[in-house]
């Protein structure tokens, strides 16, 4: 099955074009710090999202359960009686499967584990770069939508067979090491969207630590040398300040 073509936006998307209002994705931002919430909402709106901020725990819980959202960004520490994790637990207890990304200043592993146990889909530590947040939100939405098991992925003339784990470009087979294959598959899974180095390290290598050297860059450039030969259209692109993206058309220009 081929991935459905989706409306890409701004510079996180490979091809330009604006979304229509009814196709707009909705994000609920549950965060008590108004400035931070505004910063996230503004960034998401630039990317074509409909973003709604909510600073009160009880109110947020009501909106999260009553309305339909594509993704919820949830701050762990909220003032008042209802804290972030209890909102999450309640949502999950009600059978709500909306992807939730937890934002927290608590970075310790057991805090992260507590968040994941409560049912969050991703955990991001404050302070964060907006690009990291945006890439992760996109990945969450994508994951929630592609429920079916993929057999094959394509971008331009590159074909990745997930069953036989083989890769070919214009009929030319490209031998890859297992880790290179996972790296390419992950990039293709999120094609048209930027993925960050941390996301790659977490998903492809399963490491939660941050290596000192830019190891990911070196791996990408090695993969790139195998995929994008001289004279071929480049498919693996660097998104400045964010990470990498696979797309047929190159990273979009900033609006």
């Amino acid at each position: 099955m081929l991935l459905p073509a989706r409306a890409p936006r701004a510079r996180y998307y490979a091809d330009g074009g604006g979304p229509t209002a009814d196709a707009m994705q909705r994000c609920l931002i549950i965060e008590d710090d108004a400035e931070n919430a505004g910063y996230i909402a503004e960034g998401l709106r630039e990317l074509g999202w409909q973003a709604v901020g909510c600073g009160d725990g009880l109110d947020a819980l009501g909106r999260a359960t009553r309305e339909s959202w594509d993704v919820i960004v949830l701050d762990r520490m909220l003032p008042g009686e209802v804290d972030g994790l209890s909102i999450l637990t309640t949502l999950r207890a009600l059978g709500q499967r909306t992807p939730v990304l937890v934002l927290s200043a608590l970075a310790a592993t057991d805090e992260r584990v507590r968040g994941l146990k409560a049912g969050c889909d991703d955990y991001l530590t404050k302070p964060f770069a907006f690009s990291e947040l945006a890439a992760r939100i996109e990945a969450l939405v994508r994951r929630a939508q592609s429920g079916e098991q993929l057999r094959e992925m394509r971008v331009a003339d590159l074909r990745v067979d997930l069953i036989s784990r083989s890769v070919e470009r214009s009929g030319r087979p490209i031998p890859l090491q297992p880790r290179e294959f996972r790296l390419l598959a992950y990039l293709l899974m999120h094609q048209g969207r930027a993925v960050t180095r941390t996301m790659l390290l977490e998903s492809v290598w399963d490491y939660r630590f941050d290596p000192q050297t830019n190891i990911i860059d070196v791996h990408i450039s090695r993969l790139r040398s195998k995929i994008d030969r001289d004279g071929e259209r480049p498919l693996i692109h660097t998104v400045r300040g964010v990470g990498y993206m696979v797309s047929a058309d190159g990273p979009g220009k900033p609006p």
Partner: protein
Amino acid sequence: MSVALTRWWTSIAFRQALIYGALVVLTMTVLLVVFYAETVGEWQRRIDRQIDATTQRLVEYDARQGMDALAAHINGLLGDGVDSDTEVYVLLDPAGRKVVGNLALAPAIIAPRSGIIERYVLRAGRPSESRLRITPLGGGGVLIVGRDMQDQRELESLIGRASLSAALITLLMAVGGALLFRRQLEHRIGAIRLTAARIERGDLAQRVPISAHQDEFARLSDDINTMLDRIHALMEGVRHVSNTIAHNIRTPLSRILARLRKAQDGRNPATELPAAVGAAIAEIEDLNVVFDKLLQIAEVEAGARRQSFAPVSLNAIAVNVLELYDAVAEAKGLKLTHALDHEPMTCGDGDLLANAMANLLDNAIKYTRTGGAVHVDTRRDAAAVTITVRDDGRGIPSSERARVGTRFYRLDRSVPGWGLGLASVTAIARLHGGRLVLEDAEPGLIARLVLPAFDSA
């Protein structure tokens, strides 16, 4: 009074001493009772034997010589002045009349019976408690032989009183001892409590005074002082770390501020501001990384991650981290080789151990010149497993080796980094009950991560 009693009773020293005292009193009482029974009882038995012997002798005398001769003999015995304070003899004729004797008789007691009886009688005109043996004679008369027990009773009460006062004195001594013991103990514990109170008030330099006796309290005080020294050292360490952290965070913060202010006040805000903002963002991102790493070290040092420990293979960790770094080594033109031992297992957190090895490998690659070689091996010994990363770079002078594990210590400030890598490795090694060993590879550095072996058997 009752308040004082409650206060005493809550004192374990007082209670222990009192219980001990009660035990002593009990032992003493048992001892006295046994002593009393043995002395007084034995004496009485001796008297009874004597009465029996005399009775037997007099009965035989009667059988041989007749009652008149017996009467004369008894008369002689009564008058000979031997035992005259205690002896009792009475001879009755068959009609029940007294022939001779020193008792005023009540008729009720004359009836012969077996054994020795004890009666209040009038002996020589005064009341006396006597032990008597009443024996019928062959000719129809009755013989009474006995002994006045007055002196015996006096002795008994004397011994009884003596025992009682002994018991009382023992009890008093036990209570007094308990109080004294309590005071002694309170005095010794008081010194420790006083020190604790002073430390609580904030004087951390206080130590428990050590007395000259090498007793339990001296040893306890010694232990407490050692503990206090350790806490003091740890707090000094924390203070040092906070100071270093403050320095390493304030310095970039003031750089950022200075640059932004300069740009704000500068002549060409249009060109200076974007550059200053860019530099500020880069510095803040760096600070963020430093924070993350510091928090991670703190988390590792706190030890909470021990809960998720599981058996892990050092080979699997080494292979994965090598794979992560092979592209970097290749790009730098380094020869990255490895040799793996058979199944070196330890019990630990795989992610942290990979992090530690990544740090070691990162350093090795960073400090090795292009064309150099980095070699990784794993090894299994009886009690320990080891990951070794060996490079042929410039190494670390032996004088610096002890300090490279401390936070923010950097040997070469021209190479990018934060000086937290080896501090992190050291913390991870300690969390796993292992250690980081740095040696000279001549040239280069050997970094060994030594961990306790996990034995699946």
